[in-house]
């Protein structure tokens, strides 16, 4: 189970790094990157939970959850980018 | 009969609530319909109250209950005390409605005015019929809401300012009342109004009860205009005359006084309250208010302001009567609830008439007005004499019983001087007005003579209401011993309060 723990802890670190950058950065793009890293951290925790050693079958539930989360994340990213672009266009007009 | 006892209190509320709501939706120009709705509502209410009086006199129980929340019941309950206040409000509402119809002719926003006017009476009647403290608080706040637009009605900066000040005082008072009520409610599990009070046997911490008493009385004292919580009342006189009349005689000020009576008699129980030692303080405040109000009235040239300070002073007679332990003082205080209402409404009607007909707003402009407006001035005179306490007008009865009560309770040493001083002061600020009106001749042209060239001094709708109420003030004084008179009724209540 040590491998799972290594990745889970990495996930925790990624998550908090993302939170930190979201709080510290002010412009949108870096914040979006940060939020995506955050998400990656959470996903990593989920997937490491599913991993039960190379010999046992994995737990498919967290995998499915992460897949869902991944799609939600890109939807939100796309929306945020579109909003941001419109705002810049307005600033230029 | 069962259904009757449940529906009668609700019917009394609805008889002004429904017309009020309907009136809101009437277009401005539907004058006749509005008048009919108003009068129909007032007459139905009068009829229902008549049934109520008869029933309560024969010890029937009228009660409506509706659970609003766990432990919080909306209770309408008619006992002798409620009947006293209900009949006063109903009668004076009818008269004031007629007066207001005449007074507001051709002014804008009448649908709004009469809508709120009816709501205001509904709230007052609700207060009277409230069967527990929770219901009382509900109507107490509703009264604030219904009267605020009436005071602000003219929309002028002064009117808005007066209304704002009124609101500040009453919201604050309502809040304290609510806190006190919730506190007491939490301790007892429900505060029903029961003749003789409920706290005597409840075995609660006495100092807590004192604090709660303070909260309740301060909350109620705002509306009752106890010094130093009276500041809103002189400001609120910017309202149209019918509103002032109703405010001073029935609705707001009386609601406060009535509430104090309720709390002392039917929640704490007067003997228990005396035991707690809170009545002495209340009596002192009442005495100060009586003297202070009279002194302030003395220095006012503005007629409605003088009347307003007179109200400050007079309403505290009720509180004073309540603060003295003993049936006779109780009778004096309770009967003054009615007497002061009838007399004060007369005075405000008259003041409104002076302003309406001749543009007179100040005492100094009243020289010789008696000859020009004899009917109005006659009514004013009766009211003023009553206020001073000259027999046989009703005010005398109140003061007489208060004095007797003080002697009975052994409080004569401080009550009698207060009564005498205040009567002298009353005389000092009312008699000069009467003198100017009747005996001086007109010294300057009327500020704004709108009735020049008319045969009669005023339209019927403006003249008859003050004459009616003045006659009432005279009659209830003369016939004080007759059955169903306010005095008889006050004796009935006192008998029930001191029964055990």
């Amino acid at each position, binding site marked *: 189970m040590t491998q799972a723990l290594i990745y889970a802890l990495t996930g925790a670190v990624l998550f908090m790094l993302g*939170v930190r950058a979201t709080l510290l950065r002010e412009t949108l793009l870096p914040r979006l990157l940060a939020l995506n890293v*955050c998400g990656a951290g*959470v996903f990593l925790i989920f997937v490491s939970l599913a991993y039960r050693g190379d010999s046992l079958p994995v737990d498919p539930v967290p995998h499915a959850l992460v897949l869902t989360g991944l799609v939600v994340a890109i939807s939100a990213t796309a929306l945020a980018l579109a909003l941001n672009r419109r705002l810049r266009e*307005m600033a230029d007009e | 009969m069962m259904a009757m006892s449940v529906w009668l209190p609700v019917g009394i509320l609805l008889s002004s609530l429904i017309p009020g709501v309907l009136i809101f939706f009437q277009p401005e120009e539907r004058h006749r319909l509005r008048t009919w709705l108003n009068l129909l509502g007032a007459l139905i209410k009068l009829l229902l109250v008549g049934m109520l009086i008869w029933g309560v006199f024969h010890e029937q129980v009228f009660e409506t209950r509706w659970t609003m*929340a766990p432990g919080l019941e909306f209770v309408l309950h008619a006992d002798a005390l409620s009947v006293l206040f209900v009949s006063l409000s109903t009668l004076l509402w009818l008269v004031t409605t007629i007066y207001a119809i005449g007074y507001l002719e051709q002014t804008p926003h009448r649908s709004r005015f009469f809508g709120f006017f009816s709501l205001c009476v509904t709230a007052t009647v609700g207060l009277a019929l409230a069967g527990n403290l929770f219901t009382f608080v509900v109507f107490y706040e509703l009264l604030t809401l219904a009267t605020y637009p009436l005071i602000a009605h003219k929309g002028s900066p002064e009117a808005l300012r007066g209304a704002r000040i009124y609101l500040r005082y009453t919201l604050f008072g309502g*809040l304290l009342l*609510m806190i006190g009520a*919730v506190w007491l409610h939490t301790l007892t599990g429900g505060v029903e109004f029961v003749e003789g009070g409920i706290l005597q046997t409840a075995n609660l911490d006495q100092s807590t009860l004192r604090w709660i008493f303070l909260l309740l009385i301060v909350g109620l004292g705002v509306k009752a205009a106890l010094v130093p919580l009276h500041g809103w009342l002189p400001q609120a006189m910017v309202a149209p005359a019918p509103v002032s009349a109703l405010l001073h005689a029935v609705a707001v000020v009386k609601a406060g006084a009535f509430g104090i009576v309720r709390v002392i008699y039917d929640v704490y129980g007067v003997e228990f309250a005396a035991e707690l030692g809170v009545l002495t303080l209340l009596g002192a405040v009442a005495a100060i208010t009586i003297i202070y109000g009279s002194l302030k009235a003395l220095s006012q040239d503005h007629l409605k302001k003088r009347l307003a300070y007179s109200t400050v002073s007079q309403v505290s007679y009720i509180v004073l009567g309540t603060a003295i332990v003993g049936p006779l003082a109780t009778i004096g205080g309770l009967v003054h609830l009615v007497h002061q209402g009838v007399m004060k409404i007369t005075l405000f009607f008259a003041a409104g008439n002076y302003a309406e007909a001749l543009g007179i707003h100040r005492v100094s402009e009243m020289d010789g007005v008696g000859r020009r407006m004899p009917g109005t001035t006659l009514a004013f005179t009766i009211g003023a004499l009553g206020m001073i306490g000259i027999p046989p007008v009703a005010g005398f009865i109140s003061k007489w019983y208060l004095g007797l009560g003080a002697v009975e309770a052994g409080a004569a040493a401080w009550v009698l001087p207060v009564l005498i001083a205040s009567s002298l002061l009353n005389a000092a600020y009312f008699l000069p007005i009467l003198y100017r009106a009747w005996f001086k001749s007109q010294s300057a042209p009327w500020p704004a003579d709108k009735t020049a060239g008319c045969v009669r001094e005023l339209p019927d709708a403006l003249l008859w209401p003050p004459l009616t109420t003045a006659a009432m003030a005279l009659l209830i004084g003369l016939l004080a011993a007759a059955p169903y008179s306010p005095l008889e009724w006050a004796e009935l209540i006192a008998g029930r309060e001191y029964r055990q």
Partner: protein
Amino acid sequence: MNNPLIWPVAVPLLSALLALLWPRRSTWIGLLGSALSLAAVVLVSRQVIESGAIELALGGWSPGLGIALRADGLSVLMLLMSTLVSMAVAVYASVYFSRSERRSEFWVLWLLLITALHALFLSGDLFNLYVTLELLGLSAVVLACLGGSRESLQAALNYLVLGLLASMAFLIGVALIYAGYGTLDMAALAAAIESGPTAWVALSLMTGGLLIKSALFPLHFWLPPAHSNAPAPVSAVLSALVVKAAVYLILRLWLALFDEVVTQTAALVLGLLGGVAVLWGSWVALQAERLKLMAAYSTVAQVGYLFLFLPLLAALPEGTTRDVALGALVLLALTHGFAKSAFFLAAGVIMQRAGHDRIAELGGTARALPVTAFTLALAGVALIGLPPSGSFLAKWQLLSSVFITGQWIWLPVIAVGTLLAGAYTFRLLGYAFAPGEGVGPSLSVGREEIPAVLLALAATLLLGFWASVVWELVPISAYAGGGG
């Protein structure tokens, strides 16, 4: 067919798809969809009232492996609020957006928002809650953009980014719960969760995320710009419903799932934040120059009131007294939902008529728009907590809990908050009822004025006189944990 739980979700979703396919009919589809959603919710409510909490195991899989929908008293009340409010707002929006080129997008997203709300209130699975939260957040953001102004887009963008951060915090909490307890089903979790590091950390992360979404002071800063710049119907549902969804989830977590974990201190902290929110929100609302901004800050304050209940609930012993307090909390949330949506709709009517919503220039509103002015007054009564509104009863019970628990510290907060609410409401009414030409004369009572006044009446009369239903429903719980 005899388990109706899916319909409150399926009906608005299906309507949304139809509105997307037939944009020219979108208004009618939107109205019909809202009405049918209402019917679906009524169906569910009746069943809960008659036979207690109900559960639907989706796909026929046992909850845990599959996802369960659950309806109990609390969720039914929230559903009823959201469907009634959204029905009224839909009627208003059918007028508001009738000439907008964004009409069909509005209706699609509107129906998606209702779908999200209903799905959230019915969900019995932690991860599914995350998905509904995201759906709610995204559709709310897009709706808030529909005004198209720069301010509204900027506010929506900030709302989106913070919402994403909040969802992430929620999601990592879900991950920790799954790590510790091996299931996502809330009923199973309610029985399994016990006090320990996993529960503490997970609860604080999830609560932290939800606090952002419920805009509790000091995490409220995103709310006023987002709510005050959105189109009126959108502001109405954002303030009335979307914020409540987060509060609802906090309640679920604290009272049903983590009831053994929650400590008095934690509750006290949230209560204190709530207290500051009440005072700060009301104070800023009093200073506000714009009507919608005032309404938004008033939402900050009102949310604060809801959190005042937490330390009281934590201190009360389980049983009737606690259920009474919990009912009061829910009643306050419901009343605010109805009153605030009415308020925003009325503000929308004024803005469309006058072209602005500067409070100081609202003179003449009462003459030009009497029904709308009346709506503002009624809604104001409910916001202050005066009778006969539901919030009066709720405040009474709140004060009562204060006295029972002896937590005196909340007394001044409630008192000052009430007075401040009175001050900002009557300040507004003072301007609105003053004479003036700020608002053009009205030709007739517009159809758009009616929904607002009905909502305000619901807040003041319906929830005042028939509030006991709330207390009957609240104790019906789908979760073993307790009153939640």
